[in-house]
C-alpha cells in the first residue's frame, strides 16, 4: 500500500486506513514518499459507541530513516469523540502542539494508532501529500 505516492511535483491523495471499527492498534504499512514536501493527515472518527464505552486513540506520525531508526514527527492528542482531526507537517509550518509540526518528511512515513482500551471505535485515516 502507498508505495511511492507523491509523484514528483504532483499533489496526491491516499487512503492510509479505510474506515472500520477497531478495538486494538491496527497494522499499517509504511508509506514510501517519492516526492513530498508536506502532508495533511486526516483522522476521521465517526462512531465511539455509547457509554459506558469510552474508546480513546492517539495517532503518531513518524519518519523512518535508512537505518530503520524511527523518529516521531507528530503525536496527536487523545481522540475520544466523533470528530475530524487534521494533522499537518511541512517545513514552513507554524508548530502547534499535537496538531502541526514544522519539519521535513523524509522518505518513509509510519503511522501508528494506539488504543487506550478495547472499546470499539470507528475511524479512517487519509493522507494529502503536497508534491515538491
Amino acid at each position, binding site marked *: 500500500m502507498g508505495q511511492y505516492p507523491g509523484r*514528483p*511535483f*504532483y*499533489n*496526491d*491523495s*491516499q*487512503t*492510509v*486506513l*479505510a*474506515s472500520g471499527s477497531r478495538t486494538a492498534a491496527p497494522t499499517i504499512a509504511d508509506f514510501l514518499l517519492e516526492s513530498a*514536501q*508536506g502532508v*495533511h493527515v*486526516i483522522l*476521521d472518527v*465517526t462512531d465511539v459507541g455509547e457509554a459506558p464505552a469510552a474508546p480513546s486513540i492517539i495517532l503518531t506520525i513518524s519518519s523512518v530513516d535508512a537505518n530503520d531508526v524511527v523518529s516521531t514527527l507528530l503525536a496527536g492528542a487523545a481522540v475520544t469523540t466523533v470528530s*475530524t482531526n*487534521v494533522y*499537518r507537517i*511541512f*517545513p*514552513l*509550518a*507554524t508548530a502547534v502542539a499535537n496538531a502541526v509540526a514544522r519539519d521535513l518528511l523524509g522518505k518513509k512515513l509510519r503511522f501508528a494508532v494506539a488504543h487506550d482500551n478495547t472499546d470499539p471505535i470507528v475511524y*479512517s*485515516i*487519509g*493522507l*494529502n*501529500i*503536497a*508534491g515538491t
Partner: protein
Amino acid sequence: MDTNAGRPGYNASLAVFASAARTATPTAVTINNLSGKALQLIVDVTAITATPSITVAIEGYDVASAKWYSLLGSIAAIATAIQRIYRIYPGATASAGLTANDFIPKTIRISVTHGDADSITYSIGANIT
C-alpha cells in the same frame, strides 16, 4: 474545474464564480489541483441590495472519509461592496480568517453560503501557484 490547475511549473488563474447578482447559495466549485501549493482567492463584491451576507469557505478533500475539511477557518461574513483576498501558502504569516500558513491539497472546494435572499453581486477568482 480546470484539471490543469497547478500544472507543474505553471501558475493558474481560474474564474471560480463569474460576476453576477445572486440571491441564493450557488453550487460549490471543486478544483482539481495537480501541483499547486499556494492559493489567492479574490472575492470582489461590486453591488448589494438591502442587507445581503455571504460567507466563503475553502476546504480540502479527504479520500479516506469522503469528507471536506477547512483550510482557512473563521472566515468572516461579507456584507458590503468590498474586495477581499484570502491567502493560503506555506510560510504565510497567519491572519485569522484571511491568511493561513498551509498548503492546498490535491482537491479543494470553494463554496459561498448566502445568509439571506437579498441580492449581492460578486465574483471569485483563484490564483494557484
